[in-house]
């Protein structure tokens, strides 16, 4: 039985040279490897899109951290994706200022346009839709991020243009 579990359990993959380079840079900022854990998961996510079991184990191996502790950190922070996401992650702010200015309607608009609900990814793996707590753009509400970019004073028409631009960029 134990052999069976061992043979199907995920194994650490090799980190890429770019990932190792970035993790080494972060290590210079902290006296202990544990403090680099979250930054290392973010680095992996930057290159891979998400943090697979194989990636998590690779980071744990590299930093000599217990994998279960690192998993505890990975699942605590909502911006670490432990499941695959689309190429463009849409973070739609659903906090109070954006809610007052109609983010629910925008969510319905995105859902009907892309055919996905919160937490889902389009069949072509282009878009994932996730709600995000207050983006700190309340004076320019409603707001959302797509990837690293923030978009403000949103309307359905603006969202159409943003999504079309993402699709065009591929």
């Amino acid at each position, binding site marked *: 039985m134990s052999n069976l579990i061992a043979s199907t359990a995920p194994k650490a993959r090799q980190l890429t040279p770019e990932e190792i380079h970035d993790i080494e840079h972060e290590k210079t900022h902290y006296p202990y490897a544990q403090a680099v854990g979250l930054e290392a998961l973010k680095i992996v996510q930057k290159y891979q899109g998400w943090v697979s079991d194989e990636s998590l184990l690779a980071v744990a191996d590299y930093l000599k951290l217990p994998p279960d502790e690192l998993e505890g950190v990975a699942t605590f922070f909502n911006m670490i994706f432990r499941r695959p996401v689309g190429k463009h992650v849409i973070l739609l702010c659903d906090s*109070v200022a954006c809610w007052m200015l109609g983010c629910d309607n925008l969510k319905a608009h995105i859902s009907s346009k892309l055919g996905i609900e919160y937490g889902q990814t389009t069949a072509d793996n282009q878009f994932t839709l996730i709600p995000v707590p207050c983006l700190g753009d309340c*004076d320019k509400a409603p707001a959302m991020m797509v990837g690293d970019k923030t978009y403000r004073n949103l309307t359905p028409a603006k969202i159409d243009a943003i999504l079309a631009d993402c699709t065009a960029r591929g």
Partner: protein
Amino acid sequence: MTVTNKPLTKNIEIGRAPFNFAQYQAAGGYQSVAKALTFKPRDLMKLVQDSGLGGRGGAGFNTGLKWSFIPEPDGGPRYLVVNADEMEPGTFKDRLLMEHDPHLLIEGMITASIALQATMAYIFLRGEYKEAEHALLQAIKQAYAAGMLGKNIQGSEFSLDMALHTSAGRYICGEETALINALEGKRANPRFKPPFPQVSGLWGRPTLVNNVETICNIPGIVTHGVEWFKGLGINGQFGTRISGVSGRVKNPGCWEMPVGTTFRTLFEDYAGGMQDGYQLKAFLPGGGSTDFLMPEHLDLPMIPGDVAKAGSRLGTSLIMVLDDKTCPVGCVHNLIKFFAHESCGWCTPCRDGLPWSEHMLLKLENGEGSLKDIEILKEMCGYMAPGNTFCALAPGAAEPLQSGLKYFMDEFVEHVNHGCK
């Protein structure tokens, strides 16, 4: 040259790139570092304490007094951590400061570190603030290149390193001990206090955690002195602060203004009052975790004590207006949903009380609620009150709920059976 009366935003011009090191220095920047190096550290802490500067993250505690609890150096590492995890619903002031004048924060951090004799300074930045990340990384690099960071700053005995930590979500990271756990690479559950971070913080070492805007006040206070700082305030208050308005007003935004300015001045003169066709119904004075205030409270000065007497908290002093066409029950539901989602799960009143409250509010919204639910919601506010929870998250969450029930009870009762119209 007259000394500025807008020390926080004097270099900010929306639409142009932030000042680089040379431009910032040419505009009078980094003077506080040289001046601070001539002080005994304890005298510098006393200076900040005498200025009356209160923490701008929401709690408002005297900054110099908070600093003074740090023990004398023992040769080991000491840390300054800037809390740049701005995530309080309705708050967008630190974003402005970091994106548009990153060197002001860095100067404040260096000067504060001289007072605290810190050996390392971290900025704990929320991961979503990509523009701020870019601006701060550039500015830190420039400060190192100019000898303002690193070994023997400006030829002195004082050395300081600085690094930017970008986080990955979770509102609880704004709680200073949770932030310290997150910075150590752990789950961001708050820690028991005492010991307070000043004594045993990051990696068990003396640590000060201060908000971005708080630290941005330090260069002005040290450069121009306490009397100048006191002269900036009105209604018996000292200094300036960033206040702002969101919601259906004509001109939402945030601006630097004298501490002690009234809500009405902020709401009418700066934000232009309500948009046409909307009336002011109520407002949250300083973020999602503050009690509602009503239009009759607009003439209050934005002073923590005055706001407390009216039954709320000044918090971050960025107000969110609730208009007459937005449902207050829906508004409270949105806030409680946020807090339920952001609970770290450590203590029961928060972990279980918030989702249960959210569930009852949703039932009310859908016309499936009962008067009993409203009674239980009231009880919940008691369970989540200060003293019953491990940290301030749930007591803060209870504030809009308890004041919502106080001011809008008729609407809550109307929602029973009818739901939200």
